[in-house]
């Protein structure tokens, strides 16, 4: 059966008018989008390379925009959204058909006697119902159940109404058509709706059909014009945004060129953002998942990651002032001497501070990445916040004054504590075995024999509590017979705190120094018990010429256990751990204890290391793990990341106390940590919570050291 073009619309009065009406609207849509693009084009040229690693990019689109995996983390929202997504995409077939004179129908309806088209019509009928249920559910969420992350804006309501109108007018038009002229093949819903209509007067049916059909097309056009100006624009931009997503390790911040003269360092104005950053703004669905996950926001601070992204969109839209929808022709522009295609430089120079985020909020961020992890359309918040910090530090020297001591300490003494390097090995005093130093081993030609270089990190070198962890970890290494060495005085801060506080200058200084030291000894593997050192050494040093194999101690200990080099003995046989027991606040033995694992952001979320610490804790005799609600990649920051360790937390309540509360809720007796900063924060949290019930924070290495017997 062949269907001629226009034939399906023979009942539509004045059908050819669809071309000017719909395609006119489409042209306006294109012009509105083009106006957005004119601002993006004026932004900083840096950005992703769209045609690099195409398979990975394509896979991302399948996974995040088509399968919408992140949406299903909140199953209710996921199902609801998927109904709307399917509705909108599949109904697109019918819509395209209606505005092209029936091209899809002519093509698809040609073979097999039109069965394919009939099937498509049936599917469309089904998803129309699904979409309407989705809309109803969405209304219920906005208006009745109201999860706190959702904003009740007029725009959100109007978008839902528009969807409802577009879908229902189409369906009802079909129903009237079926009632007036007989069943439509495949349109089972419309045909059923036609039954009660059958009694109506022929003229009424025809008029009803005409009104509904045209109402549908007009609503479609109007919706199309309106979409690019609001959050619903994500239906197009999310594909692009996900395609363009960052494929480098998430824990790697972009390198800054510090030698450019007269440049703005970091992000100050709208135009300092890359075009992809602005595209982020136009992709945001205002879903609030980021803000909901944000520990700073949760504890009553002004930081609002959604607000930042929406602010960028608002600023970009504001910068369109003066750009005409229909630009003047080049000749007219010349005569007028004005360019209505380019944004006003003064609007591009609007500062991000106060335009999109306030000063306090910039410093409240712990760079935990919970926002990035939760965003269904892969928006990057952290880079932007650090970019603004870079500008404040490097251009203006404006930051919370407590940070000065950390900066000066890193710059002068190579550690944020400002302690002399000569005390870097103090933690080894009193250990029952020697801790060899790389320089000494190299001098006697024994460096080649080492299996790993233990990167101790500043916390373990200078903080009393973290020193105990270092002793426990070294005890595990010794018990497993691992040949290891440390750098001692030659080690300097990895630079992570400086970098995340925006002090790229000090970071690069430290990175280059450390890369040089490490290259000199060229260790086969580096192991560290500090997530920040781990992330920076493995992901950020390659940008400075240092590519090393770096392992976090959770993974390293898990491997020692798996390889049988460490065997956790029965409780009480912890003969090999006298050094740990000395001064440890770990009471009793590990037997029969319940442990909750507090994941570090830079281990679990940034690097996906989740099962390893659990393998270590789970290997201990008699230990039961009780998870917190937010664990693994969804972990909740301890409050120390992003250099917050070195700043006072004066706004809102304290993040570490919130996390401690969550840990105590599990009823566990031990909070297992894998980071010296988490140790400080959770330890303080427990002290404040008055953990009289004897709940303690212990590093996984400490738990293991208590229980290992030498092989």
């Amino acid at each position, binding site marked *: 059966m062949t269907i001629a073009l226009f034939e399906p619309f023979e009942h539509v009065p004045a059908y050819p008018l669809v071309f000017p009406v719909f395609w006119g609207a489409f042209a306006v849509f294109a012009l509105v989008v083009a106006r957005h693009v004119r601002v993006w084009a004026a932004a900083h040229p840096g950005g992703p390379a769209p045609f690099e690693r195409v398979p990975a990019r394509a896979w991302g689109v399948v996974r995040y925009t088509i399968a919408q995996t992140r949406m299903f983390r909140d199953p209710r929202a996921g199902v609801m959204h998927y109904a709307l997504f399917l509705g909108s995409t599949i109904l697109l077939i019918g819509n395209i058909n209606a505005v092209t004179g029936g091209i899809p129908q002519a093509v698809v309806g040609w073979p097999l006697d039109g069965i394919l088209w009939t099937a498509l019509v049936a599917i469309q009928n089904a998803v129309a119902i699904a979409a309407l249920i989705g809309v109803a559910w969405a209304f219920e969420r906005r208006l009745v159940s109201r999860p706190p992350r959702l904003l009740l804006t007029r725009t959100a309501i109007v978008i839902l109404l528009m969807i409802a109108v577009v879908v229902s007018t189409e369906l009802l038009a079909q129903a009237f058509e079926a009632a007036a002229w007989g069943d439509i093949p495949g349109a089972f819903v419309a045909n059923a709706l036609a039954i009660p209509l059958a009694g109506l007067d022929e003229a009424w049916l025809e008029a009803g059909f005409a009104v509904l059909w045209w109402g549908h097309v007009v609503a479609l056009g109007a919706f199309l014009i309106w979409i690019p100006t609001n959050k619903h624009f994500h239906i197009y931009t999310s594909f692009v945004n996900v395609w363009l997503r960052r494929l480098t390790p998430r824990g790697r911040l972009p390198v800054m060129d510090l030698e450019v003269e007269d440049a703005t360092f970091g992000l100050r104005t709208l135009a300092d953002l890359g075009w992809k950053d602005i595209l982020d703004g136009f992709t945001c669905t205002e879903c609030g998942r980021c803000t909901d996950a944000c520990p700073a926001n949760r504890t009553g601070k002004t930081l609002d990651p959604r607000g930042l992204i929406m602010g960028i969109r608002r600023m970009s839209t504001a910068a369109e002032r003066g750009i005409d929808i229909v630009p003047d022709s080049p000749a007219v522009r010349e005569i007028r001497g004005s360019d209505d295609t380019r944004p006003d430089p003064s609007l591009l120079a609007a500062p991000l501070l106060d335009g999109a985020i306030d000063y306090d909020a910039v410093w409240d961020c712990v760079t935990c990445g919970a926002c990035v992890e939760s965003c269904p359309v892969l928006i990057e918040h952290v880079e932007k916040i650090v970019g603004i910090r870079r500008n404040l530090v490097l251009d*203006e020297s404006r930051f919370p004054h407590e940070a*000065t001591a950390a*900066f000066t*300490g890193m710059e002068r003494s190579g550690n944020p504590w400002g302690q002399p390097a000569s005390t870097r090995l103090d933690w080894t005093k009193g250990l029952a075995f020697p801790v060899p130093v790389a320089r000494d081993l190299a001098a006697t030609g024994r460096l080649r024999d080492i299996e790993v270089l233990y990167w101790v990190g500043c916390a373990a070198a200078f903080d009393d509590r973290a020193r105990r962890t270092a002793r426990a970890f070294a005890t595990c290494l010794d018990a497993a017979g691992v040949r290891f060495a440390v750098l001692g005085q030659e080690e300097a801060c990895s630079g992570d705190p400086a970098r995340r506080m925006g002090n*790229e*200058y000090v970071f690069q200084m430290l990175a280059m120094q450390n890369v040089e030291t490490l290259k000199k000894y060229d260790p086969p593997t580096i192991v560290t018990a500090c997530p920040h050192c781990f992330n920076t050494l493995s992901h950020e040093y390659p940008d400075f010429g240092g590519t090393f194999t770096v392992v976090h101690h959770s993974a390293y200990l898990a491997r020692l256990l798996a390889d049988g080099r460490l065997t956790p003995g029965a409780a009480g046989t912890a003969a090999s751990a006298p050094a740990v027991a000395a001064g440890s606040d770990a009471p009793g033995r590990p037997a029969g204890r319940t442990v909750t694992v507090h994941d570090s952001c830079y281990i679990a979320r940034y690097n996906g290391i989740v099962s390893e610490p659990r393998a270590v804790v789970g290997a201990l005799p008699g230990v039961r793990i009780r998870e917190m609600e937010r664990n693994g990649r969804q972990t909740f920051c301890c409050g120390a990341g992003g250099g917050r360790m070195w700043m006072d937390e004066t706004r809102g309540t304290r993040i570490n106390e919130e996390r401690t509360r969550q840990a105590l809720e599990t009823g566990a007796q031990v909070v297992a940590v894998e980071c010296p900063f988490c140790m400080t924060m959770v330890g303080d949290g427990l*002290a404040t919570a008055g953990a009289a019930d004897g709940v303690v924070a212990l590093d996984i290495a400490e738990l293991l050291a208590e229980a290992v017997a030498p092989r």
Partner: protein
Amino acid sequence: MRIVVLAKPVPDTTGTERLGDDLRLDRLSSPPIVNPNDEYAVEQAIRLVEAHGGEITLLTMAPPGATETMRKALAMGAHGGLLVTDDALAGACALATTRVLAAALATLDHDLVLAGAASADGGAGVVAAGIAAIRGLPYLSYAGSVEVLGDRVRIHRLHATGYTVLEAPLPAFVVVTQMVGEPRYASLKGIMAARSRQIRSVSLADLGLDPAEVGGSAATTRVLAARRPAERGATRVVRGSPAEVAREIVDLLDERRLL
């Protein structure tokens, strides 16, 4: 307004200092920094220039390598520097330093001279007063705040029970305390700008001074002995809720009869 700030390079105060065989500080053992007290003087100078306009010149007597350290103060916002450097100055005493710096100051235009209270290495605390005396400048010390009012300078001179308001006509010499305000952390912009600022080096001959009178050979003081201070007792950290901590601290102070 033209401000001269004395800014001395000293060994990093967080480093472990070592004494050489001659009982003098081994300056190579740790990288030098700007004398922390002088950083407050630089900060005060910058604030005055921000308010009234003008230029800041650093003045230092040190080995030639000191230009590196002086750049750190330039990065904060000073405009230029004068470094008096001469092999003959090794081992110069405080009196000689005073005379050299006074002679160098005479070559600089200045409305106000600022310095921090004592250096972190020598710690004599007399050079500033000496320079003021030689140059015949009004000398105002222990300044907790500094204000310039037209052609006069007014300071709050701190003492144990309060402060005295002092005023002097410009040019004058003011020694500041750490109460004038935290020194700023140099921005990268500042560091880059400092690279192109000029630090002039002059020798004793350029200043018309005789090495035999101001050099190390003419030192009026001599180090007879040096020893490390006794180790301080271990620090005790008190933890707990604010109320508990307060109670424990009160008990501790009480035990030691400090209350």
